[in-house]
């Protein structure tokens, strides 16, 4: 099995996640795009782990998953709180700090 196709796929998924964060307006979908980027980096880590023949990459991917789980919990709680006060999940509506 080659290594390069996996890394290219990871790069493509990461790019799609990036564009999603930049274009989507719904805070939850933006969050999903961040998850997509984390997953893409995990794929690269696991591929490099196989390419180099040690398990460090898999451990790193494991830690990324743990941090992602913690991040999702707090992030979604923040989105819920914003929704409760502003009745909207759009990232454009939370612009009070701008003024």
């Amino acid at each position, binding site marked *: *099995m080659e290594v390069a196709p996996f890394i290219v796929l990871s*790069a493509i998924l990461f790019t799609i996640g990036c564009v999603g964060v930049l274009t989507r307006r*719904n805070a939850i979908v933006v969050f*999903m795009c961040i998850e997509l980027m984390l997953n893409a980096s*995990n794929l690269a880590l*696991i591929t490099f782990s196989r390419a180099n*023949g040690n398990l460090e990459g898999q451990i790193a991917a494991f830690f990324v*998953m743990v941090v*992602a789980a913690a991040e999702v*919990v707090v992030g979604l709680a923040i989105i819920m709180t914003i929704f409760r006060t502003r009745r909207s999940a759009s990232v454009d509506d939370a612009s009070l700090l701008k003024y």
Partner: protein
Amino acid sequence: MIAFWILAPIMVAAALGLLFARKAVHAALLLAVVMISLAILYAVQDAPFLFAVQIIVYTGAILMLFLFVLMLVGVDSSDSVVETIKGQRVASILVGLGFGLLLVIGIAQVSFGTAVGLDGANDGGNVPAVARVLFTRYVFAFEVTSALLITAALGAMVLAHRERLTPKLTQGDLAAQRMRDYAASGKHPGPLPPPGVFARHNAVDTPALLPDGTAAPGSISRVLAARGTVKSAPEIADDIKALTGEDSTSTGAAHTEGEA
């Protein structure tokens, strides 16, 4: 490698769908497709432990959490198409394409050599091998993770907690409020009438009939009325007429069999 070439187009298509899906629930389901495909790619690359963790943690816990919050926030909260910054969408797509091109060209320049493979490192099973590395060299990071998880749990509890600003209404308060409403606006203090139970139509979309044969408006759900799926009383009578063949003008109320 066959698994990769089958899954890669599916994953890219699903990820692109994430960009274009109007409804957030569709985006969540497409993300689930990407994550399960990724799990299979992990399994292909000699990482069975991460395969299981990916399915359990990502598709199981995180995505369900996403769907849960989507349901709380409201499924119909779709994206607004209005651009707050002019030309932002075009600019970000261009920047994204440039970034992707940069990454892919950069990767194309690199020679990765032949993959060593994990047969040596996975000696004695992948899970024991991962555990050996995790609990020796990375044991401190592992312990710090527990602090992170506790902080996240506390943070979520603090953020989701809502102070009660008004005292909780007791049953007595509610009864008194109902009587006050009755005195003020004549609102019926009792429960709403149940939907009609007829010999042929034993369903919630059949309204109860008032003594004059008209439908009682409070007896059917507001949602059903808005969807327009409520059966009207004359229609029911037509049905009965067609069944019995008799042509009675006293329809509706005459055919009700006890309104529950």
